[in-house]
């Protein structure tokens, strides 16, 4: 069943702002020689600058685009324009009883590809491996990692011995040297964590606390690695992941997943060092579990999409091994379905209890997702807070304009919120006012 996308949802699919503008400008019937919709797809012919119109198709079951235009953007403005036009004037579309041959061919190929991929991933036989070589390489890496982490520990100890008062004025190169050493030592995640230290808000009072929290946590992580065999197995995986070991996707996909109706709560793109990371948070409506999908795109590669915020997909998700599993992969997706308001924590005490529980299992967690009901936004002394029904407050880390937007839509009344908790405060990613879903970009 196709759930029509709103303009905001379509905008999320665009690769950049220029594509949004161009797509919206194509959302006029005058541009389209023909346009039709079927429950599986929509398609149309858009008159461009050339003699022949461009053939544009959108797979509505698992959002995907195809267009005959030469654009290297994906989706191109024609695909977006077709969706925008449907959002604005669905009655202008011809409802087709059957797919046109070329659309049928494309949709079928996509379905066949997806079907072929699933069993392959599930039943993939383990590759023939050079066990000895692998063991040797692992040993070498562990040696490098241990040496690198020892170097980091010395660096951190020197830092606190000499005092951190000069930190706000140091240049990024202060961290770059030690981060480069971490890359050499094959602990890239630690290198990223060190580089991120420069991004803390040093112009604000109280910068010392988040800085200390981060460097002491890095130190604790290096300590934990030294005692790795003594920690519980799930936590061992977390520690290794945080240091820089990757768990292969194929290995994760071999596990049994959780089939549920997953509500897509938020999607965020984060750019760092020529790498774009896409964070997609989901919550399962039946199992009430959160899941984080992470996608990585090197510079120049346009983020893909399959999930639109506010929609609910029926899918099987499989979690990466962890003491507190959150990161997941989509193993199989079946289609879209109507969204309902998920159940939520009643107040911040409940949230904090779960934070304590989570930290007990995995003390290096930096962020945790929660749904919490009966909260309000409050603006006081130029700061925004989220306040629960018992008047307990947490700092709201969203940009100021989003605070005003939430206040405008909620009219100072309590609402249900999807928040990302961090030790510094919470970020509101989406909320519901009278059952209406509002995502925040």
């Amino acid at each position, binding site marked *: 069943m196709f759930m029509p996308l*709103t*303009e*905001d949802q379509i905008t999320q699919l665009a690769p950049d*702002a220029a594509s*949004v*503008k161009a797509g*919206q400008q194509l959302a*006029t*019937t*005058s*541009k389209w020689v023909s346009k039709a919709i079927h429950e599986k797809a929509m398609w149309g012919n858009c*008159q461009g600058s050339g*003699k022949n119109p461009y053939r544009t198709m959108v797979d509505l079951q698992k959002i995907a685009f195809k267009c005959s235009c030469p654009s290297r953007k994906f989706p191109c403005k024609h695909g977006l324009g077709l969706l925008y036009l449907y*959002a*604005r*004037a669905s009655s202008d579309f011809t409802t087709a009883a059957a797919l046109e041959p070329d659309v049928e061919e494309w949709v079928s190929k996509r379905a066949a590809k997806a079907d072929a991929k699933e069993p392959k991933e599930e039943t993939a036989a383990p590759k023939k491996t050079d066990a000895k070589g692998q063991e040797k390489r692992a040993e070498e890496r562990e040696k490098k990692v241990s040496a690198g982490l020892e170097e980091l*520990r010395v660096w*951190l*100890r*020197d830092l*606190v*011995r*000499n*005092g*951190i008062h000069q930190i706000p004025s140091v240049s990024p190169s202060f961290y770059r040297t030690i981060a480069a050493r971490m890359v050499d030592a094959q602990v890239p995640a630690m290198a990223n964590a060190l580089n991120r230290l420069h991004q803390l808000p040093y112009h604000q009072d109280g910068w*010392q*606390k988040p800085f*200390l*929290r981060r*460097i*002491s*946590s890095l*130190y*604790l992580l290096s*300590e934990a690695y030294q005692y790795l065999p003594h920690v519980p197995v799930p936590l061992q995986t977390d520690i290794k992941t945080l240091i820089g070991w990757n768990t292969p996707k194929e290995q994760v996909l071999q596990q049994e997943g959780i089939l549920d109706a997953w509500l897509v709560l938020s999607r965020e793109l984060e750019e760092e060092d020529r790498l774009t990371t896409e964070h997609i948070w989901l919550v399962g409506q039946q199992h009430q579990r959160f899941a984080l999908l992470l996608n990585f795109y090197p510079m120049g590669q346009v983020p893909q999409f399959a999930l639109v915020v506010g929609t609910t997909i029926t899918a099987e998700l499989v979690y990466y091994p962890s003491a507190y599993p959150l990161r997941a992969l989509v193993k199989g997706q079946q289609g879209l379905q109507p969204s309902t308001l998920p159940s939520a924590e009643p107040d911040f*005490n409940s949230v*904090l209890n779960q*934070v*304590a529980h989570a*930290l*007990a299992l995995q003390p290096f967690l930096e962020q945790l997702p929660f749904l919490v009901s009966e909260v*309000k936004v*409050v*603006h*006081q002394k130029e700061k925004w*807070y989220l*306040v629960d029904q*018992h*008047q*307990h*407050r947490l700092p709201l880390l969203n940009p100021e304009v989003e605070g*005003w*937007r939430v*206040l*405008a*839509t909620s*009219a*100072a*009344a309590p609402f249900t919120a999807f928040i990302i908790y961090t*030790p510094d405060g919470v970020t509101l990613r989406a909320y519901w006012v009278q059952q209406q879903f509002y995502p925040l970009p």
Partner: protein
Amino acid sequence: MEADLIKAAMLGTSQYVPSQLSPLAKELQQTLGPTNEDKEDAYLKLTAGFFLVSEAGQQLPELTVQLPSPPAETRLYITTEANALLRQFLRHKEDNLLEYFLFRCVAAQKTVLPEILPEVLSMAVEKKARQEALLQISGHRGQWLAQLNPAWQTLVAPEEENVWETGTWEQRKRYFKNLRARQPEQALTLLHNHLQEENTNARAELLELLYPNLSLNDEPFLTSLLTDKSQKVKQVVYQLLLQLPQSRLNQLVQAYVKAAVQVKEERVLLLAKRKVFNIHPDVPVPEELFAAGFEKTSSQKNVDDAEYWVSQAMAYVEPEFWQNSFGLSLVETVQLWANHASKPLFLPSLVQSAVRYQHRELAQTLLSKKEVTGMELLQVLPVAERFTYADRFLEENPALYLHFLLDDTYAPIPTKLNQRLLQQFALKPYALTQQQYQRWALQMEATMLPVLQQYAQQEYQEYQMRFFRNVCADMARVLHTKEQLNALL
């Protein structure tokens, strides 16, 4: 404890080590003790443990703020589709479509959805010209929200009493303009008391704001300003007094015209008689009119001085003057001046008079004469009537003619007229800017869509025509968007 940890970090553990540990920290230190390598190692592990323990057991502060709820909306909300279009116009700075949206939304007495209020209110602060409409479509929720944000409070806060003394120049002008519209007498008193405290340019600008509600009550004050030391201010004052019907200066003008112009009868072909205007060359122009800006001689060759003075004066007499002074109807007046040998001098003065006093009948009479070239007369006529002058003006200057067809009510321009205009602009596509083309599209009817599409789909080799093709494609988009808005609002 936290402060102690931070103190140690700031000074460096070589200088200071946390000494006064809380019971919890002591417990942590004892647990971690056996693994400690040195005091920095101990400090970092203690700090990490402390932050984890603090976070796991944190007590949140309370914040009790009772914000009053916004009043319920009395107007209907626009649809989500209309809201999405508004967002598109705001995001992509589509000013023409935004203006049209405001026009439709205000007319439909609807309110925008709350999620877009931050952008709407921010624009209301930035764009004073749109402020009223933007506030209107913001509804009660917008007013409520604006009160809460210092950046938007100026939108709803009652104008402070001392805004005249302490506001910015723009705020002060706005305050004075509003006061003049609501209470002309009070505005006059305000100027009377404070005008001399302003610099020359400010004095001139404030006086110009008197024009829309000019009345004889203003005359004494304006007359008193004729001694102002600034020539610029004096010229503004003279202009106001000259065009104020029945002011002493205006009466001086009328008296001069009445004395200098005579209606005489002359024979035509020895049989018939006809009336003609005759200019009496010996009637002197009051010196005050020269002080008010009248020129003594024309810059053009072969223009008689007396005729030139009369023509200048005619621009300041009300159209009724001719009936009252000479018993001539407007048709007769225009005809007589059109018969005059120096009609190129006199007819433009009548055009100025018609425009200045917004006299529709005089404008129509003048437009009925082929000799009259003033396209500005169209602005005196209702929009629908302007369309009927296409044959007269369209080919002469299509851009200027179109300018007079575009109005604030978005009155649709007849399709045939649009087609004729398009044909003209296809020959000179750069006569209008892209913004002007878009604005024009908003006064087209849907029947123009196929016409625009036809232009948009043609293949052209010349770069000018390729530009025009793109322009037509864009106009089609704007027109289609307008139709979408009409269906939604």
